[in-house]
Each structure stands twice: as structure tokens, then as C-alpha cells.
């Protein structure tokens, strides 16, 4: 029981880290451009499909991973230049609708190209198998690797935002768009870069998660909604909030599904304990979100509602 608990804790960490890759892009795009992008889940799907297709074609997971980054970034940049750019000055309703249309286009296009059957990605040879973790339990090596890779990417993102010239521009863009344009920063290019960066992170998450689950049309949508919950909890526009929110949602969701049925089993018969426990567990993160919003309507690290 205790080792199972530790294992679930790691699974929660993994889902939290993957959520952060999604949520950080969403929150960056909102923070800098003021855009709500429903099609972010489609870019996650694009990454997963690119990885699966290239990995199947070349036999190399690493080329697939590169492909997922490239494909999502290119798709993101193209979409930004062709469509999203026209939406920055529109109200949120137009943004929601246009990006909803983009989801239809991406999902249906992918189904057209790849068919409706899920694709499967296999784990690279040297990351297969399990490792013995402290606490004496076996954990899949690949899952451990994506936790580490996720944290590495997160650290890289914090360095990029905090220490580089591009990061300074991004933060300046969040603070005052008009001013940095007046100071001679090419704002159009900055926006394209930020959008492509967010897309690449989503694509990478898609490739990682696609390897542990399956790659199929519509896979981005549940993750997108979780990412929304994350950035609402963390505060829209805050990368730090996205990190805390991701881990909170990842742990709450995983541990809730694991613990609640056990908790109800202490005073209910097993069948109804599982039913009530799992039904409640599926609602748990939304209850947490409601609580956070009740106490802080603009999220944990948000500045304005």
C-alpha cells in the first residue's frame, strides 16, 4: 500500500510536469498577447502525431521528438501569422470562436491524413524497463525520464524568461505592449516567437504523453481543459503560477483517483465506494479550482481579474 502510494505520487508529479509544458505556453500567450487560445490542444496533438509518424518512418524516437518540436513550432508560427495575428485586437468571444474553428480544422485534418485509429509510440530501447526507487518499488524508467526532462524544460523556460534578452522582451511585452513597440522591438516577430515557443512546448508534451498513452485525434482536448484549470488556479499570465498550479492539479487528480475510493471503502461496501469515490475524484480538481477562486478570484499569483 505504501509503495503504491509512492508510485502514485510519482505519477502525479509526471502529470503535473506535463501539464506545466501545456499551461506555460497558454499562459505566456495570454500574458503577452492577451489571447485565449483553445487550439493549444491541437498543437499538442500535432506534436504527438509528428513524433509517432517520424518515429515509425525512421525508427528513431529521438528524431520523432525533434520532429514533434519542429512540427508544433512551425504549425504554431504559421497559425499565428495567418490567423491569430488578426485576433489580438478582437474581444475574447471572437478569439474563442476562431480558435474553436481552428480545432475543427486541425482535428478533422489530422483524421483525414492519419485516419481515426490511434497510433502507438514505442519507448526508446534504453529507456524501457523499470528502476528500483527508494522505498523499494519498481517504476518505469521512461516515466522517470519524462519527469526529469519536463523539469529540465521548465528550468530552461525559467532561465529563458528570467535571464535572456528574449525573456526581457517577453516580460516587457507583458507589462506594456505599446512601449516596447515604441522602443523599436519588432512586436510582430516577438509575438510569432512567443506563440511558436508555446506551441513547441505543447508539441513536446504531446510526444511525451503520446508515448505513455496512445496518439489519437482529440487527445489534446482533455489536457487543454486541465491546462485551463491550471492557469485559472495559478493566475493567468504567471509562469510561476502555472508551475504551482500544474503540480497542484497533477497531484490532486492522481491522488484523488487513488485515495478517494480507498477512503470511501472504510465505511461503504466496495462497489459503491468505487463508484462514489471515482465520481468524486473526477470532480476533485474543479472543486479545488472553485475553492481557490472563492478565496482569490484572480488565482494564486494573478494580478487582475
Amino acid at each position, binding site marked *: 500500500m505504501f509503495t503504491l502510494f509512492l508510485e502514485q505520487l510519482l505519477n502525479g508529479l509526471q502529470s503535473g510536469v506535463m501539464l506545466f509544458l501545456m499551461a506555460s505556453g497558454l499562459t505566456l500567450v*495570454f500574458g503577452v498577447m492577451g489571447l*485565449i487560445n483553445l487550439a493549444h490542444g491541437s498543437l499538442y496533438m500535432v506534436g504527438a502525431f509528428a513524433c509517432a509518424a517520424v518515429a515509425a518512418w525512421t525508427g528513431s524516437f529521438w528524431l520523432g521528438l525533434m520532429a514533434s518540436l519542429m512540427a508544433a513550432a512551425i504549425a504554431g508560427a504559421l497559425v499565428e501569422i495567418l*490567423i491569430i495575428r*488578426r485576433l489580438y485586437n478582437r474581444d*475574447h*468571444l*471572437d478569439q*474563442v*470562436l*476562431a480558435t*474553436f*474553428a*481552428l*480545432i*475543427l*480544422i486541425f*482535428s*478533422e*485534418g489530422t*483524421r*483525414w491524413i492519419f485516419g481515426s485509429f490511434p497510433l502507438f509510440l514505442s519507448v526508446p530501447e534504453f529507456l524501457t524497463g523499470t528502476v528500483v526507487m527508494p522505498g523499494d518499488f519498481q517504476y518505469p524508467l521512461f516515466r522517470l525520464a519524462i519527469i526529469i526532462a519536463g523539469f529540465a524544460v521548465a528550468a530552461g523556460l525559467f532561465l529563458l524568461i528570467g535571464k535572456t534578452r528574449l525573456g526581457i522582451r517577453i516580460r516587457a511585452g507583458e507589462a506594456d505592449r505599446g512601449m516596447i513597440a515604441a522602443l523599436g522591438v519588432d512586436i510582430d516577430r516577438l509575438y510569432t516567437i512567443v506563440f511558436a515557443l508555446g506551441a513547441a512546448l505543447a508539441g513536446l508534451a504531446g510526444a511525451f504523453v503520446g508515448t505513455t498513452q496512445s496518439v489519437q485525434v482529440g487527445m489534446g*482536448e482533455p489536457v487543454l*481543459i486541465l491546462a*485551463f*484549470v491550471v*492557469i*485559472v488556479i495559478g493566475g*493567468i499570465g504567471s509562469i510561476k503560477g502555472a508551475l504551482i498550479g500544474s503540480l497542484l492539479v497533477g497531484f490532486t487528480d492522481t491522488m484523488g483517483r487513488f485515495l478517494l475510493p480507498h477512503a470511501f471503502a472504510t465505511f461503504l461496501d466496495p462497489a459503491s465506494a468505487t*463508484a462514489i469515490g*471515482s*465520481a468524486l*475524484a*473526477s*470532480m476533485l480538481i*474543479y*472543486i479545488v*479550482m*472553485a475553492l481557490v*477562486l*472563492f478565496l482569490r*478570484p*484572480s*488565482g494564486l499569483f494573478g494580478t487582475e*481579474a
Partner: protein
Amino acid sequence: MTMNRETFINCILGLALVIVPLIALGMDEPFIITLATKVAIFAMAGVGLNLVLGYGGLVSFGHAAFFGIGGYAAGILASHALNYEPIMTWPFEIEGTTQMIIIWIVALLASAIIALAIGAITLRTSGVYFIMITLAFAQMIYYFAISWPAYGGEDGLSIYVRNGFPGLNTLDPISYFALCAVMLGLAIAFSAVLIRSRFGLALQGARQNSQRMTAVGIAPFRIRLVAFVISAMITALAGALYADLNRFVSPSMMSWHMSGEIMVFVILGGVGRLFGPLAGAGLYIILEHLLGGVWEFWQLPLGVLLLIVVLFARGGLVGVLAGERKHV
């Protein structure tokens, strides 16, 4: 009597909704009558959403939850009645029912209670937060419906015989269409009265300038909350009709895709237009039927069309045909 262009277009839309099924009846095409029934029901769901989205300026991305609650009211009550299982036996016994009128009352009450709870939390926020949180709450209810095994869970719930309405054979397609069309007409008429009332003016005032509204002594929060509840109730009623049309209800009625579609009906037709949802739902069903007949991947051109409407044809169908929105 002078008639402005929007009123004229509204008359044509209303007439088209009535005439098309009648022609289909003459040509013995029950499928087209079913499509027209679907248009009436979707339009009604849109009329509900339009109240908050168009007149209140509140972008609710979670109205599928209320649509589904209405659907489950029909499904759950009918399944108890058909299986002769009381819903509860203690402290008093409540039986299921196959009477639409009772089902509608239950749908209205259930959606009102849930909308009150969701609205009380979500309306504390605004803008993007409001969009995302309404979406998140709808997902919460969606996942609850999936993981709660008592009423079919993910598989949904069949309604073996369409529920009844006094004096009407609801199984007859044209009768059921007439019922749905009358309900849509009532919903539109109710909206028309509501938006011209003091309440409706306050709601629109809160959209245009909420600070000024507060300054004249009207609290926008309460106005919006009431509007949100009424809007949810209309959408739930449409959901109950939809479940009876398909004789089936499943969590997919509550999916966020459905929320998106209801929003598409409103926007395709024209935000804040009385007959906008009817125009939008009609156009959507026609496109689905025409494109879907030609190409399996019809949502691809639909997405492109939607993009074009958002980017270039602001104001939707009614907007394009009737010009700028007049101030009420």
C-alpha cells in the same frame, strides 16, 4: 405598418422553419422533419445562451452542462417510470414519469439550482477567467456523468418510448416538430419581452458600462446572476426536448464540443439578435447535412467557414442581412 429589415428577416426565418417541414410532410420525407426539429431545439438552446452572451456580454463556455442536465432530467425520469422503480422511497416515495410537462419542470428546477451555484462562483470573475471557469464547471459535470454508473455512465441512457404530452402523439414526427417549434417561439417571445423590460435594460447596461450601472444603484452581479439562471433554464428545456428527439441521452450532450456548438449557433446567426440562434442553427444543420453528405470530413470546411465568419463577416448571418444592430 412599417417594418425594419431585421423584423422582415426574422419573419422569413420563422416562416422557413414552419414551411420546410410542412413541405417535407407533403413529400413524405420524415428525415427532413427531424432535421427541422433539431434546428428548432438547437435554436432554443442558442436563445438561452444568447441571453447572457449577446445581451449580457458574458461568454459562457459551459452551456452544454445545462443542455445535458435537461437531457438527463428526461432520461432519468423516463427510465424510472419505464422500469417501475421509484426514484426514492424515503421519506416519501417519488416515482419516475413519462409526462413531458413534469420532466420540463424538473429540468427547469435542476438547471436553475445548478446555474445558481455555478453562476455565484463564476460571476465573481470576468473576461477570460469567466470563459475558462464556465468551461471547467461544465467539464466537472461532464466527468461526473461519465463516472457515475447508476444512469449508464459513459454509455448513456436510452428512452425507449418518447415521453408524452397531453393531447399529442409525440411519436409522430410532425407533431413533435410542432411542439418544439412552439417551445422555441415561446422562448424567443420570452426573450423579446425580457430584454425590453427594466431587467433586460439593466442587463444590457451592465454589459455596456458596469461602473455606471453601479453608480445608478443597480448591482450588476445580481442582474447577471438572474440572467445566467434564466439562460441556463431555457437551454435545459431545449436539452430535455433534444433527449426526447433522439430518445437517448449521454454525457456527450454535456461535452465542451457541445458548448462550442451552441456558441457557434449564436455567433453564426448573430450575437444579440433575437432570431440569430435560429439562423445559426439552421445554417449549421444545413451545412452539416449538405457537406456531410459529400465529404466525410465535413468539419474541416465548416471550420474554415467559421473562421471566415469571425474574421470578416462580423455580426453573423442576421448581421450581414440586416445591417448593424439597432439599439433596443
